[in-house]
């Protein structure tokens, strides 16, 4: 069956349908990772986005039970050159087509994904819709133009009530803005006693859990759409060591008085080089963000830039001058992507240890 992608600029890509028959619209973005489609699909940061994978052959090793980054993928569509019908892998349980059907996600294959990628590169991310061939194209284009981007994705993907993932180590409150499982996995690996809380949990509620550290997760959309989190961060900053990832990083920066801005087409992929400014060390990182902390707005804050992107000099990490708090724009939990920055979680744990030490002797 044919299906089309209609973009707000009027471009149309006709290909073959796979996955769910539901028609969905969203912001069309691209990811350049060559592996990890299951992780990408289930990363809540893609909530309400239609993801184009630039690698042409997708689904080769199928879908397995282990590699989900959330239970219910919230992506609004998947576009590939070819979705493999007969995957083969010892962990394989179903095809990508089957998963998309089950999860109500439309897919489009057989289009020139490189052409689409270059279009996004040139024009920036655009709104688009995956729909059947019999729709009124002009009306869809009009609708796309007139419908603003969603602003409530965090609410949509964050948990509704707190839960505990118990451990015998440090108590970490993990604020879920659309958390990838990888973050929880890294904390669990370090024996942390994690309490995952919804995005709108207040500072008081968090402090009442008496945490040793606070972890701000990744999540979808514009950080400015989550003002309650900014308020919460201001309430805990300086009291409890804090580590932010991706959206968590942007929220931390906003809370400290910096500003964020939307990027033309963002960073999405598994090959982004990031330099640690102090040491000059370069790590290849996994990234997925459409917003960035504005460098110019840091001057008046208590933040110092710790990491930057080698390719475009955008800010990839900051830390607080006074308080035990730092954040990175990229994904040290990888999944998918390189694990070069995994030790940032150890740094977080060390920071907590150091912080506790100070308390004892203070």
């Amino acid at each position, binding site marked *: 069956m044919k299906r089309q992608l209609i973009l707000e600029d009027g471009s149309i890509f006709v290909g073959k349908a796979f996955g769910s028959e539901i028609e969905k619209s969203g912001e069309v973005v*691209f990811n350049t990772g060559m592996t990890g489609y299951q992780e990408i699909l289930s990363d809540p940061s893609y909530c309400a986005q239609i993801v184009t994978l630039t690698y042409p052959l997708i689904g080769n090793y199928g879908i397995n039970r282990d590699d989900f980054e959330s239970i219910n993928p919230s992506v609004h569509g998947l576009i590939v050159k070819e979705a493999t019908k007969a995957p083969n892998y010892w962990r394989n349980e179903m095809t990508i087509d089957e998963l998309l059907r089950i999860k109500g996600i439309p897919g489009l294959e057989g289009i020139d994904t490189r052409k689409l990628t270059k279009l996004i590169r040139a024009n920036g991310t655009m709104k688009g819709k995956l729909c059947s061939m019999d729709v009124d194209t002009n009306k869809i284009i009009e609708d796309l133009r007139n419908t603003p981007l969603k602003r409530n994705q965090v609410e949509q993907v964050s948990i509704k009530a707190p839960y505990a993932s118990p451990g015998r180590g440090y108590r970490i409150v993990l604020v879920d803005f659309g958390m990838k499982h990888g973050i929880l996995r890294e904390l669990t690996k370090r024996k942390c006693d994690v309490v995952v809380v919804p995005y709108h949990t207040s500072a008081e509620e968090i402090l009442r859990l008496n945490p040793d550290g606070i972890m701000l997760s990744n999540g979808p959309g514009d950080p400015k759409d989550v003002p309650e989190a900014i308020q919460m961060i201001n309430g805990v900053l300086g009291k409890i060591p804090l580590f932010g990832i991706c959206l968590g990083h942007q929220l931390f920066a906003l809370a400290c008085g910096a500003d964020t801005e939307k990027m033309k087409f963002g960073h999405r992929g598994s090959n982004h080089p990031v330099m640690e400014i102090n040491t000059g060390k370069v790590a290849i990182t996994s990234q997925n963000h459409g917003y960035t902390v504005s460098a110019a707005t840091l001057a008046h804050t208590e933040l110092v830039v710790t990491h930057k992107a080698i390719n475009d000099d955008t800010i990839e990490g900051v830390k607080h001058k006074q308080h035990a708090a730092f954040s990175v724009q990229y994904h040290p939990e990888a999944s998918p992507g390189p694990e070069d920055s995994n030790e940032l979680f150890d740094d977080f744990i060390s920071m907590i240890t150091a912080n506790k030490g100070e308390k004892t002797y203070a």
Partner: protein
Amino acid sequence: MPKRTDIQKILVIGSGPIVIGQAAEFDYAGTQACQALKEEGYEVILVNSNPATIMTDATIADEVYIEPLTLEFVSKIIRKERPDALLATLGGQTGLNLAMELSEAGVLSEYDVELLGTSLNAIQQAEDRDLFRELMRKLNEPVPESDIVHNLDEAYTFVKRIGYPVIVRPAYTLGGTGGGIVHNDEELEEIVSSGLKYSPVTQCLVEKSIAGFKEVEYEVMRDGQDQAIVVCNMENIDPVGIHTGDSIVVAPSQTLSDRDYQMLRNVALKVIRALQIEGGCNIQLALDPYSFQYYIIEVNPRVSRSSALASKATGYPIAKLAAKIAVGLSLSEMKNPVTGKTYSSFEPALDYVVTKIPRWPFDKFESANRRLGTQMKATGEVMAIGRTIEESLLKAVRSLESNVDHLLIPSMSEISDDEMEERIRHADDERIFVIAEALRRGKTIQEIHEWSAIDYYFLTKLEGMIKLEQTLTENNGSIELLREAKEKGFTDSFIAQLWNEEERAIYTLRMSEGIVPVYKMVDTCAGEFESETPYYYSTFEEENESAKTSKESVLVLGSGPIRIGQGIEFDYATVHSVWAIREAGYEAIIINNNPETVSTDFSISDKLYFEPLTVEDVMHVIELEKPTGVIVQFGGQTAINLADELSARGVKILGTKLEDMDKAEDRDKFEVTMKTLDIPQPEGKTATSVEEAVAVASTIGYPVLVRPSYVLGGRAMEIVYKESELLHYMENAVKVNPQHPVLIDRYLMGKEIEVDAISDGETVYIPGIMEHIERAGIHSGDSIAVYPPQSLSEEIKQTLIDQTIKLARGLNIVGLLNIQFVIQQNNVYVLEVNPRSSRTVPFLSKITGVPMANLATKVILGQTLAQLGYETGYGEERDEVFVKVPVFSFAKLRRVDITLGPEMKSTGEVMGRDATLEKALYKGLVASGMNIPTHGSVLFTIADKDKEEGVDLVKRFHAIGYHILATEGTADVIRELGIPVTTVNKIGAEKPNLLHVIREGQAQFVINTLTRGKQPARDGFRIRRESVENGVVCFTSLDTARALLRVLETMTFSSVSMPKFHQKEVIHS
């Protein structure tokens, strides 16, 4: 870190001659490295013995030495040049070994030369089996378990611990003799017992078998700041068990999940960091298809064949950056040369699939063992890029130029099911085609998986392709299916075959339906950043990214994969042609498909199309680019073969006209031309049937030289001495018919001469004449060529010059031509004329300083030689002597007879240069890998017809103190001369027999000439193979042996006793 300023002068070591396992990829790597170092302002001194390379061009380094890559000669260069540093990691295993030798001999420390890149310690750790295992243990990384056993009990103990199957490798036997894979006690007993017998030290390595695991490679780079990245990973379609150089490989990996990918990536980075490599490194891993279990198979602490492939597959120039890292630069401060905007410390993202297929020499060596295993056998490889696996694979298949345009070898339909299964279980070079045949016969992918262990993902793809074939056949003319077939990489010619149409009809149909390919850019970043790289591949999609520019363009066709008969020399000429086109103010466009070469470096041409060299693929590029014309002279037979059909489709072929080329290549027309020009050639005729052949041969008289028309490298060419041999040849070696005639010439056993010339149709310039050491009958590519000629009279030389000029004018040559002459009894005959670039162009260009390919290109583009400063005649001869010595890869090709003859067998060449012929020969022979001791023993086993000539050699060897060994007949003759000789028994007789003498190293040289009859069972064949396998130099031509003698005679002093006093006979009373 900025680059180092404490060093100024760097010595770079090249990789020497092309042999199997070490080919053109090191010309690409070395050229990039030299250029990169020069770019950074260093003074670069290069040493390499291979004259056929771009890297040994005078412009690539500040000083270029074409000298043997041995301790002796490189030490001399170090003493003379006093470099501050040495870069050896871009010269393959040869470079590393030499660096090791220089260090061990104390040369590096004596002259204070620093080794750049990777430390010797790291090299040892990666290459020494024990040190490597020790390191892996330290890193806690798994290698397949193994043990050294000295008897059967020890083997049992090992197997008890780790279980079957195991691989048994006898120690110190060549090519894995006596080893094998063992599944049970019975096999263990058999193979270990025989293995222990074969091993001179009575040792076997017993190793856990991981055959059937996925084989995955990572190309990794690291700089001095410990930043490390993965450039590319690759997955072998053939699982562990076949050498990666002999495997079909795809990039990136297709069947690895992100967890697998990252797990192995972490390992690769850990290893390169542990070895502290500064530059590139290749890591081969095996991954269990049913778990996360993996093993590290091998680490190459240097740039390799795989890194050339990875560079072309991603656009990321590994060698160039490795050279810069070696002088202190870091990845994060170097720009990514592809985008020009981003930096080198990133990991390329591909949005296409790359397939590499090896090119094997079995079309030449029909008797060779084609079974693939742990010893690499391919001479070259092709690469193809597509947006689907199918497209990528089929483009690679037709790039092989093996007369296939699809996964179909017609004769395959005749093999039995049993043979089919056997050939899938034990892979040979055609396994992928056998699998396609099995699928056509309805075998299931489950069966094929069971036989081959190839991943179901790939088998499913192959199955889909076979199904599409069937659907196409059932739906003749379906446009929708035609489109799908093109997207899956099917050729017009194959679709035409399915639809019973002409290829042109399919092409026309497609054009009318708008089914045309577009060209996508290889940009390292999957389209994320804008790039300027002019590096394209075709695919059937929507957006075309390659726009024709306003500049007039010229298209050059490359020479495809490296194979015997068509080596790196043609890439050399191609690159020079591209440069000349650019100099002349045109846009230079190249089409080629060999990932190893300099010509497919995107920075060489204005536009690179990485495409198969078929009429269809080339026409697509021509339709888009509308070049002024196409140059086919430099791409060997590959390009020449396309010329007719391209011309028929209205394409302008630049340079010598097709009908003139035909006059040189079509036997009958050639004969007419020769008659008209009044130039003598050996009597000969064309035959189109067996009867005709017999008639022709009896008219002109035996011996005759027979060969099919239109061949390169003397394929299927033979000298036959009588009618029965001729009949045998006609039945077995060729398929004769009016379309494929056979040429029969009188075989003249004289001195062979080779001449290359450049002509604009009027002016004919001859840069040099070369004389062959071996008499006619041995392929020119396998002969030692000497410049300038040493034994020609001025009169003969003048005849050669006159005839060359006459021929060039008579054939209206515009560009290059190569002529082979034979001189018999002071008469000059023309053997053949090749109206194109030849194998000797780089050699002659380098030694005479005449940029032949450059001049030829400019002439082709319309300039006259006069305008370029050349006039008709012969270039002034140099005072020095230069020899070109062929290099063979026989040790790697079992069952191949090493006898030299009209069919070319060498894979590469080296140059020797010095003041006298003997000195030049010495260098050439040493550079080719020959060990030349000044005393020892020579074993003679020569045919009766050669005895007289052989005796002369015996005398001379004896005179310089060599001991003579010979078989009975020969020994008797020698003894009669009063020369001491040890008789050696024939094969099979008691000790000391021939094989013992050779195996035990009792002879330094073996001189064996061919008795008639070519079946390998003959003793001569065994003698020759035994010599190769034991590393003993074996001469099959008395001429080559005589050349060695000349060298030895100048190296040694003769031992002749003083003359006796003249005494009258005293009569005692």
